[in-house]
Structure formats: structure tokens, C-alpha cells
């Protein structure tokens, strides 16, 4: 109980710091890959602070409510995860949060935001089966959906769940909204949807969304870490290193691919879930 409380508090304080820092590293690496120098590593924090100074405008009276709900439930999602709760609970809470963000975009009635929201929904449909199969895989192997039970395990889940691991890394590109699957919104400069889903958010509201994404990224990497748990310090270190490598891999993918059509996102993610997730699950259940 005590460790759960400590890790939740640590998550609440550290996740935005680490998440923001990783976002800064992302921008530097990306810049170097493109032959630019890039901003200082703390730039994402400066951005958020600057956004808070902006004029308070909005497009309607209800949008902020949805965004606040999005923020709260993203934080709660990670809270459940680091408190050792059920993986399915975590996934469903994250879905709730995502739907709040989508509804916020829809509510603006703006063309760019709505098309972005529709695409975000599509991305959700694309990655959802693989995310659920990841949770099911952990359950089939360790006998529990709960993160704290999985953390107690003495056998590393990576080897038996290798198919699911690869599948999860694959859909992580969609979840991080990285190219080639940055369909709904993008950090890059002016694109056909302007800022897509985020078009109508500004000032403090936009800052809130940025911070929420930092929280979200940390806990998504937390799931990557779960594949390496076996109770030893060595594997803990390796797990953290692999999380960082996974993040680096996503940056590389982001910079080496042009955006693809939404059909590719849906097809590839569903095939990955069916083939990698399905076969892997079949093998564990037979054994």
C-alpha cells in the first residue's frame, strides 16, 4: 500500500518533468537529424510557460470542460498504472480520456479540428486491439492483469510475449502520434489540417494538453518496461534502457518516414494485432 502511494506521488511529480525532458531531447535529436541545431532541451517547458501567458480565448463555453476531463483522466490512468492496478482498468480509463479530447475537438465545430478528431478516432480504432491484446498477453502469462502482480514475477515476460512486444512497439508509433501515423495532429510545421485536433485549443488549455501528453508518454513507456521485469536490478536497468531505446526508435521512425494514408495505419495495426498478438497468444495458451 505504502509503495503504491509513493510511486503514485512520484509519478505525479516526476512524469511531467521526465516527459517534458524527453520531448526536449526529441526536438534536439530531430533537429540534428535534419541538419539543424535545435532548441534548448528545456524548450517544451518554456513553451508551456509561455502558453500560460497567452490571452484567454476559446471558441465556446464547453470545450474547456472536456479538456479538463481529458487531463484529469490521463493523469488518473497513469495513477492506476503506477499504483499497481489492473491493466484493463488502465486501458479503459485511457480510452475515456482520449474520448474527452476527441469530443473537445468536435465541440468546436471547426472543420480542421473535426477532421483531426475523426482521424484521431480512427487511430484509436487502429491501436485498440493491440493494446487490449497486450494486457491479455500479460494475463495469460502471469495470471494477473494487475501491474503489482506482474511486477512480483520472477520470470521475464519478454521472451514468451515477444510477438506482443513487437506489436506493442509498432502501435506505439500511432500512440505517440509520430510520422508515418501523425494523422490527427502533428508537431511539425504547417500541414493540411493546420494543427488538426489541436487547432482550436489555445493558451492555458493547450498547455494542459501538452502536459497531459507528457504524462501519457511516460505511462506508455511504463508498459514497455513491464516486459522486462523479473525482480532483479539488472533487468530493471535494462528495462529502463529499452524504454529509452524505444523512444529513440520512435524518433528515428518519425524522421525517416513521410506521412502515410489512414488506410495504412488501420491495415497495418490490425494485421500486427492479429498476426503478432493472435499467434503469440495462441502459443501461450496452448502451452
Amino acid at each position, binding site marked *: 500500500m505504502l509503495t503504491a502511494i509513493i510511486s503514485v506521488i512520484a509519478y505525479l511529480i516526476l512524469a511531467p518533468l521526465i516527459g517534458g525532458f524527453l520531448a526536449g531531447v526529441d526536438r534536439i535529436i530531430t533537429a540534428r537529424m535534419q541538419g539543424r541545431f535545435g532548441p534548448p532541451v528545456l524548450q517544451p517547458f518554456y513553451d508551456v510557460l509561455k502558453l500560460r501567458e497567452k*490571452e*484567454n*480565448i*476559446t*471558441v*465556446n*463555453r*464547453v470545450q*474547456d*470542460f*472536456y479538456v*479538463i476531463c481529458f487531463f*484529469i483522466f490521463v493523469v*488518473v490512468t497513469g495513477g492506476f498504472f503506477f499504483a499497481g*492496478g*489492473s491493466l484493463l*482498468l488502465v486501458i479503459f*480509463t485511457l*480510452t*475515456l480520456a482520449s*474520448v474527452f479530447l*476527441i*469530443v473537445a*475537438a*468536435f*465541440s*468546436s*465545430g*471547426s*472543420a*480542421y*479540428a*473535426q*477532421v483531426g*478528431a*475523426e482521424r484521431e*478516432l*480512427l487511430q*484509436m*480504432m*487502429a491501436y*485498440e*486491439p493491440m493494446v*487490449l*491484446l497486450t494486457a*491479455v498477453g500479460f*494475463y*495469460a502469462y502471469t495470471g494477473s492483469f494487475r501491474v503489482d502482480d506482474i511486477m512480483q514475477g520472477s520470470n521475464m515476460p519478454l521472451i514468451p510475449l515477444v510477438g506482443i512486444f513487437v506489436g506493442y512497439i509498432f502501435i506505439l508509433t500511432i500512440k505517440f502520434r509520430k510520422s508515418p501515423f501523425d494523422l490527427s495532429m502533428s508537431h511539425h510545421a504547417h500541414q493540411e489540417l*493546420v494543427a488538426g485536433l489541436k*487547432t*482550436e485549443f489555445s493558451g492555458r488549455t493547450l498547455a494542459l494538453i501538452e502536459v497531459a501528453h507528457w504524462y501519457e508518454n511516460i505511462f506508455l513507456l511504463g508498459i514497455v518496461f513491464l516486459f522486462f521485469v523479473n525482480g532483479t536490478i539488472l533487468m530493471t536497468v535494462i528495462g529502463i534502457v529499452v524504454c529509452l531505446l524505444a523512444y529513440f526508435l520512435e524518433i528515428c521512425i518519425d524522421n525517416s518516414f513521410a506521412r502515410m494514408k489512414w488506410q495504412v495505419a*488501420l491495415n497495418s495495426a*490490425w494485421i500486427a*494485432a*492479429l498476426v503478432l*498478438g*493472435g499467434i503469440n*497468444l*495462441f502459443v501461450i*495458451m496452448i502451452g
Partner: protein
Amino acid sequence: MGTIIFLIVFPLIAAVALLILKNDGPRDIVVKVSAALIAVASIILVVQYFGDGDRYFDVDGEVIGYLMMAMEIALAIVIIWLGIKYKKILAVVLAAIQTPLMVWFELSTGHGITVVNNLYVDRLSMIMVLIIGIIGTLICVYGIGYMKDFQKHHQEAGDRRPWFFFLMFLFLSAMFGIVLSNNLVWLYFFWEITTLCSFFLIGYNGLFHKKHEDKVATRNAFRALIMNLVGGLGLVIGIIILGSYYGTLELSTMLKIGSMGYSVAAPAIFLAFAGITKAAQMPFNSWLLGAMVAPTPTSALLHSSTMVKAGVFLIIKLAPVMGWNVAGIMVMMVGGITFLMASFNAISQSNAKKVLAYSTVANLGLIVACAGVGSPGAVWAGIMLIIFHAVTKSLLFLCVGTAEHNIGSRDIEDMDGLFERMPRLAMFMMIGIAGMFLAPMGMLISKWDAMIAFVDSNNIILILIICFGSAATAFYWAKWLGKMSAIVAKEENIQKSVHKEEWFSQGTHVVLVVLLCLCFPFVSSSMVVPYLESGFGSAAGLGLTSYDLIIMCVMIGALILIFAFFFGRTNKRIVPVYMAGAGKGDNLTYVGSMQKDTQVVLRNWYMESYFGEVKMNVIGVITTSVAIVISIGLVLGSMIGGM
């Protein structure tokens, strides 16, 4: 015992009274008073037998049996007459086979079998009684206001509301009969009445109209009739096998035989087949889709508290004898495939009633699959889905009905700006939609538990189905939710013309949706778990802990609080949306090419090339048909081999 008889007989009396009354005033009063009485009686029934658990009643069924038989013959004659009149030979043939077969059995073999307990009450039937008694009657009350508007739109056909309300209340009576009868012959009788009621309700705009017949309504009504008669035939065969080979006609005895380790797969598979037709599972889903031609209260009734729920009720009852046997595998295959294909189908639809219909078919599929798995955990999920689906789906149908009468369309694309035009209605719909798929709400919790139950039974196909099906479900609900929430521009508020009965009924539904989510740990521990303990011996293997359930309740509470504090409040300056600098400032128009003002039109995604209706239906119908034919063939083969 008195309450049970009241619940079956009183709606019948109300029905007859409503058939006679021709004026609005008295009809309104009779509907409201009867609805209130039925709702109160169903609550009394639960209070009365709550302490006892399962109770069986020894009623002298001799006279009632003959009475029912006479009615069955009369109903068959009506079907045959209508079949000839509308040239639907299949209906004639089915009625001409089914009823004589049943009558012959009742007079010969069936006559020798003594039925001790004709009626019963257990936790599951209590749940069903509450659903029928509260949701069903709320729909009838809604019908008062709705049918006034409906009448205005359909002047030419004459006022046929007495017939409408007669059927609605008759339906309730028959439903109470189904969930409280232990004698399968009685259950069959009530089953056939619901078939006929739904036939007349679906054909409301078609049948008996001399000049203004809606041909589609007539056609769809007969489709429903024929498919349900096929199911009825399955029920008759199941009863005959049960009577001839096992010497009983009682559902409870059959389940007891099954739980002692004897195979009852043969009767079970036929009873389940009947359930599959009534629950509109593939390959029989088309009748429920066709049913949307009827006035909206009919759809609400068929989809939420009656008809299809009778189908899943029977299959859930059979769950203890399902599992890894032929009957169980057939049921899980049919349910699983239906869930997946119907969920995909819902994505490609823009007609709100059709989305709701496919979502009903899909959710029933999940319930059926849970029953097929037959473990306590799966059945827990199935029963919870029945409860939450009944309330939420009913709410959504009533909202769509009201929207249709006020904006003149049931197309989701025409619901742009409903949030401004009919704020309260839009809010109700959003709660309903959220209730169908989002986290702290009941449907999602049931789905969560179903997923655990599927993993526990090592059923890899169902696991994959539920993972992909859930993704599709979230997609089609969320895009509708988005459409509802969109604030287009300043629009006029037009919701003043909505009848007060409609607001009352919808408001009560909303309260029920939220209340059920808040107190479902109690529903689980006081109703569902005791039912599982008596039906399965233990409720072990429930996937969700009370800890999970409490978290969900806390989340609901938190959402309500956040809503109360933050919703609609802002001190920010409101500005027009971004239109690449070419907006006219009203959020609706921009200056297009050639300096022309152009309207912004936003449409949802339907992904026809992926989830086209025809493609999904063909795949679903073929695979489920194959599953059914092979399974029934196997059972019949082993029966013939065993003789």
C-alpha cells in the same frame, strides 16, 4: 404468487381497456395508471421474494393448459389467414407445421408428463421483471406523447392508437409470462404471443391499411414473423425432445439433469436456437433491422425490455449446460460472430435507428457468447449487459424518436447543432451514448468482465473477437458522440414542443442509467451473485473484484462533480473558429474561390469500403449458418445413432 398472477393478467386487462377506449383523455389516464401499477407490482414482487431466493409454485395447470392450447390454435389460424391474404406462403407453412405438432405432442406424450412447478421466481427472473415492469412501462408512457405527433403525421390512415396500446400492454403481459414460467409449454405459449405482437407492431403502418399501406412495413413484419416462427419451431422440437427422452417439461428439471452430468445438449441446442432467432442473431438479424419501420416506442420496446431480451434470457438460463459441448460451441460462435460483424456494420450507418439496431444486435451477440461460454464469470457479464443495455438502449431510442419528430430526420448527419437546438435532448443522448461504451459506465464494466471470462476459458477466437469488436464499438459511438457535442453556431432552441410525457420518460431513464452505474456493486452482490451461486453452485471465477467496482463508482462520482463545477463555465472571450483567415465570423461560412461565400459542411466517416453493410452481413450470415447447421446436424446425428 398473487403478484405473479397480477403481473401477467393485469397488463392484459389494461390492454383490453385500451383497445376499447377511443379518446385521448381516458387513454392517457389508463396508460399512466396501469404503467404505474405494473411498475409498483414488479417492485413489490422483488421485495416479496427477495429474502427467499428461488421459489417454485405448484399451480394447477390443467385448465390453463387447455385454454392456452385453444389460444395457440386460434393464433395459428390468424397467421394462416394473414399469410394467405398477403401471399406469404412460408408463414402459412410454418404455422401449419408448428401448431399441429405442438398440439399433437401436448395431447399425446405431453399429457402423460406431470408438471409440478408451472411458475417460479429466481434472481434472474426478478431482474427481468424489473426491466420489463419499469423500462417497458416507461416506454408506454413515452408512447402517449409520441403517438400524438405520429398521428398528426399520419392522419390519412385513421386513428389506430387503441390497437397500438393494446399490443404494447399485451406484449408486457407475455414478457412477464416468459420470465416467470417454469413449464416450457407455457413459456412456448407466451413466446408465440410476443412473436405475434411484434409482427403486428412492426406492421403497424402496413397491415390492415386498405388505401395507405406502407408496403415496406408489411414486408418487414412478415420477415420478422417468419424468422420467429422458425425459432418457434425450434422451441417446439426442443420441448418434444425434452418430453420424449427426458420425461420432463420443466426448465428447472432440465437444468438439474444437465448439472448432474447427463448430456442435455439435444434439447438445449434447439431451445438455444429459438433464443438465437428471437435475439436477432445472425443469420436472423435482418428482422430486427427491418423492425425500425415501426413507430419509435415499438423499436424501443423490442430492443430494450422485451422480445430480443426474451431470446437472450432463455439462452442465459441455459448457460449452466453450455460450455465446451456442441450446444455451447454453437452459441458462442453465433454470438461472437454476430457481435463482431454487427459492430462493424454500425460503423457504416448514418441512420441513427440503424446504428442503434446494429448496436443492439452486437450487444446481444456478446450476451449470447457469454452464455455460450457458460462460466459464472461470463454469465455475470451477460446478465449485467442485459440490465445496462435495456436501460441505455431504451433511452437512446426514445431520444432519437423525439429528435426525429422535432428536426424531421433520424439521420445522424442532420443532428448537427442539436446541442444548441435541443440542449436537453442532446445532453440525454450524450449520456446514453457514453453509457454504451465508456469506462465508468455499466456496459463497459460488463464487457471488461466478459473479456476476463473469455481469457479464463482459453477461448482465443472470442478474445480476438472482443478486442477488435470493442475497438469498432468505440469508433462508431464516439463519432456520434462528437456529432452531438458539436456546437455549430447560434441556432434557435426548438425543444419547447416536446411532450411532457416524453421528457418524463427520458428523464427517468437518465436517472436510472446514472443510478445503476452508482449502485451496481449492490446489484451484483444482491442479485447476480446469488443467482450464480444457485445456478452454478458457486460464483467463483468472477473476473472483477469489488475493488474494481468501487473504483468505477468513484469515477462516476468524480465525473458528476467535475461536470457540476466546470461544465459550460468560462470567463474567456469567445472567438470564431479558425478558417484559414477566410471565415465570415459566424463559424458557418467562409469566402471561397471567386469571392463566393461558401458553407462549411462537415460529415462523419463511414468507411463503406471496409465495413460495408452487405459485405459484413454476407460474411456473418454464411459463417453463422454453417455453425448452426453443423452443430444441429451433429446433435441429430448422435441422437439417431443413439437410438
